[in-house]
């Protein structure tokens, strides 16, 4: 018997093995690192500009770098200590980028920050105040895209949002950070949803959760009954349901047109992690300096969920979960579908790091690429209705104009095509190349016009 009425998005999608190994493991607080590395770019957009200097003493929660430009976010200190250096360090981008290296002394916090567990349910801040506080706290989309949240809350003139969708889907295999957050911080999450509703001026919010997390659906449903306007929508398990456009389609039936934003169809989507961060920023003045990270892998001793300070080296988080297994072939930041393999373990956890996945050598490698057999599996699984095989060959032949006409820019990089391909072709690698080159073309055109 089905307990809930289930929804999902109609087009494409795949069903990778779920492997939610750490779903039953409560969130533990990671011991504080001795040294943190905090990059000035942890978000989509322009780097923040440093406001402290080498040798300065900082406390946890203090502003380190001020956002610069329209799409940018503030960066705060996650521990208290001395700024050892401001230099270029390797991070998840695979390159060296400017970062603050802070030697921790103790754990002193900015006195304005309320670190108690008391729940502040009453929202006193006005709409403008909420957005300002979220902007000051440097909150970005914590599902992995790291788009600055305050921009999404500032609905452009002439457009109107009528529904807030809270993304608790967590469709990536292995990851359980959002699942644990929904179970353990459910009350704070509900306040956070009300805050975001107020900021957007909407009276309806839907929390989308996949059916494989029945405990979270039950818990949040019971809480949602008490607050008006908030409902929980159970969803069928299908990857990539956590994609913004897929989730909007699944819950509201509306389709975001090619090149348009979700707000054009009246919907705004925020991740549960972002929602909790918004609660902490608005009700407790706490900037985004820590996040929940899933450390997982079949060969790992204790797959777990940790509350990690931003800037903690990935190696220390792995150590806390039992250490790096001997047969490790690859360490991936994020989930197995969209995550990125890293070549170093001393890189820091940043705002967008939702998980650390350890793959044993036997599962870590790509298979040899074979010729395309024109089976069209990639076409049938593409949730955006694209033709990945075509986009790949256009990329190989450097036909960027054609790829643009074939809507390569609509690709959400979910990796379903590469996952399903029986010939193991690197479809997404080339589509990403398409997107980059088309982006460069567009910038060139804009420059020519202005």
């Amino acid at each position, binding site marked *: 018997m089905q307990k809930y009425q289930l929804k999902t998005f109609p087009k494409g999608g795949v069903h990778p093995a779920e492997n939610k190994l750490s779903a039953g493991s409560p969130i533990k607080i990671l011991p504080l690192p001795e040294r943190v590395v905090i990059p000035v770019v942890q978000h989509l957009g322009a780097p923040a500009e440093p406001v402290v200097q080498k040798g300065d003493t900082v406390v946890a929660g203090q502003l380190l770098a001020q956002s610069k430009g329209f799409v940018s976010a503030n960066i705060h200190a996650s521990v208290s200590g001395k700024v050892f250096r401001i230099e270029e360090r390797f991070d998840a981008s695979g390159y*060296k980028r400017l970062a603050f290296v802070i030697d921790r002394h103790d754990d002193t916090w900015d006195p304005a920050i309320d670190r108690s567990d008391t729940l502040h349910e009453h929202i006193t801040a006005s709409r403008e105040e909420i957005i300002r506080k979220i902007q000051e706290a440097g909150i970005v989309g914590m599902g992995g895209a790291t788009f600055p949240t305050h921009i999404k809350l500032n609905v452009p003139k002439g457009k109107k949002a009528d529904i807030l969708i809270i993304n608790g889907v967590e469709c990536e295999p292995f990851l359980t950070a959002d699942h644990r957050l929904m179970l353990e911080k459910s009350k704070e999450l509900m306040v956070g949803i009300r805050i975001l509703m107020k900021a957007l001026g909407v009276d309806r919010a839907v929390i989308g959760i996949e059916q494989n997390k029945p405990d979270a659906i039950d818990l949040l449903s019971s809480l949602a009954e008490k607050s008006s306007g908030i409902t929980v929508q159970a969803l069928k398990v299908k990857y990539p349901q956590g994609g913004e456009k897929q989730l909007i389609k699944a819950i509201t039936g509306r389709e975001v047109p090619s090149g348009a934003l979700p707000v054009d169809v009246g919907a705004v989507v925020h991740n549960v992690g972002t929602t909790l961060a918004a609660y902490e920023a608005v009700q407790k003045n706490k900037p985004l300096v820590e996040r929940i990270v899933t450390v997982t892998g079949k060969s790992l001793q204790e797959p777990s969920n940790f509350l990690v300070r931003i800037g903690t080296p990935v190696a220390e988080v792995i150590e806390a979960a039992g250490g790096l297994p001997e047969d490790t072939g690859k360490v991936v930041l994020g989930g197995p579908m969209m995550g990125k393999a890293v070549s170093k373990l001393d890189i820091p956890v940043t705002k967008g790091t939702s998980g650390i996945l350890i793959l044993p050598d036997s599962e870590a490698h790509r298979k040899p690429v074979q010729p395309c057999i024109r089976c069209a599996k990639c076409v049938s699984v593409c949730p955006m209705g694209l033709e990945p095989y075509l986009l790949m060959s256009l990329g190989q032949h450097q036909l960027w104009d054609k790829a643009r006409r074939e809507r390569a820019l609509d690709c959400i990089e979910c990796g379903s095509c590469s996952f399903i391909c029986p010939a193991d072709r690197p479809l997404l690698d080339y589509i990403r190349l398409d997107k980059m080159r088309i982006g460069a073309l567009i910038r060139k055109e804009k420059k020519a016009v202005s």
Partner: protein
Amino acid sequence: MSNTVLYTVISLSGLGAIAAVILYFVAQKFKVTEDPRIDEVEDVLPHANCGGCGYPGCRQFAEACVKADSLEGLFCPVGGNEVMARVAEILGLEAVEEEPRVAVIRCQGSFENRPRTSHYEGATTCAVEHALYTGDTDCPWGCLGLGDCVEACNFEALYMDEKTGLPVVIDENCTACGACVEACPRDIIELRKRNKKDRKIFVSCINEDRGGVARKYCSVACIGCSKCFQVCPFDAITMGNNLAFIDSDACRLCRKCVPVCPTHSILEINFPAPRVKKELVTTAGADSSGKTAGTKDTATGKKSSSGDSTETQNKND
């Protein structure tokens, strides 16, 4: 029966005649007059359609030449001055001579010089690897070794050396069309002046990191120490971004900079081994004289071997 044949022949011939008349008038009406010189110029061009001139193909370049009032800025790198002189002759213009150029690879990060720190197994193109990370070494500037430049070359002037993992330019084939320069995501390839006997001196590194950092990735990185800058008598060397750069137009190939480079990142190519030094070595001992003899053979050869020659030379100093 015979009537049927007759009618068919008559009606078809009639149709043919009408169509011919219509076609004649249409052809007159929509006649395109094209400058016959375009064909003439195109015939002279090398028909490589490489795009090295900046136009999509030889035909478009020929059109541009015919349209232009002077040949300033129009140059076919493949045909060189010879072809341009013929083009000028056809058009009655004056040819603008350009120095012949050749591509050089500004990276020596071979397997030996630059340790591999990870293993890359994504799509086998430098463009994708470059977008992902520093590559299988830690150097964010150096060659990725997947051969986008070789792929781009229309003239078989590049190949990958399997021993070093780096591309090698075959000077005789290189036309300096610039396709490889365009293809390289890291801007490692540069077009430099083709001197007498293809002799070249250049800094084979584009690493802009500070010296200490650069040396961590790669033992032959330019560390920006300015020693070559100080020794150059012709002011051909400029320092900037922790790098030395030798201007190929100002360089007089005196080779004073080569031995002073502490990291051997300045390459000398196609020079004969210095005679005086050979004598010095022969007096020094049998061991090293064997080495120099070998160098002498290879120094006239290709790029990879000339690295050895600089090394021995330094030891001798």
